[in-house]
């Protein structure tokens, strides 16, 4: 058999950093996944808060204390940052899926747009909400 190394090769995600250079597009793509998955923490907290509100005042006060504590604030702030990043990156994916902005130059421009845009939108959200 020609391929004697079958099953013992490094697979693509774990080649990053060792064999592949970090690039703007690979980093923003990975961050899209990380933010998407990390938002489960925020979703869990808000669902818990809704359940407490539906259960009664005593329980509500407990969860309200958690969600408005500094650690709750921290989770909510990073959830909003993740939410905006994931939303903007998701829009780029929708454009890519339809064949637009696939060249490196426009992808890079959009990457900076996603990074800057998510920070600005997060700060706006934090100020308004």
């Amino acid at each position: 058999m020609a391929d004697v190394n079958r099953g013992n090769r490094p697979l693509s995600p774990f080649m990053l950093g060792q064999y592949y250079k970090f690039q703007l597009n690979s980093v923003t793509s990975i961050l899209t996944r990380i933010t998407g998955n990390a938002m489960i923490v925020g979703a869990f907290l808000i669902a818990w808060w809704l359940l407490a509100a539906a259960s009664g005042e005593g329980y509500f006060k407990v969860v309200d204390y958690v969600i408005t504590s500094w650690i709750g604030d921290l989770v909510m702030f990073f959830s909003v940052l993740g939410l905006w990043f994931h939303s903007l990156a998701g829009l780029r994916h929708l454009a890519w899926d339809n064949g637009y902005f696939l060249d490196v130059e426009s992808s890079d421009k959009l990457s900076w747009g996603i990074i800057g845009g998510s920070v600005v939108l997060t700060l706006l959200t934090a100020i308004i909400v």
Partner: protein
Amino acid sequence: MRYLTDRKRATGMGSSKSGTDHHWSMQVSSIALIILVPLFLFTTGWIIGAPYEEVVAYYSRPFPAIVAALTFLVGMMHFKNGAQMAIEDYIHGLAGRLTIIGVTILSYAIAAVAIFSVIRLAL
């Protein structure tokens, strides 16, 4: 002579078994979420931290309640499908299948808790 068309015989034969359904559901839910998420941030995001009476009164209004329920319904299904893709890339074999089952259960559980709570607050 075969009465099945070639396309019909090919359906479901790929390694994913389901063709483009998964990708299509991600596209549909992502566009729905682009509309829902800003509305959710400025309704539920705004009322989080308010006192109990205000929160209860807030969700008795139709708009915040419908937006919250829809966001959790569409959002958790989008999470379930998206997380499944990530798991399929990184975790293989039995561990991968068990993780997908766990994530699916978690997604439905969070959606059910949130939607039940919103309905109970609204009614």
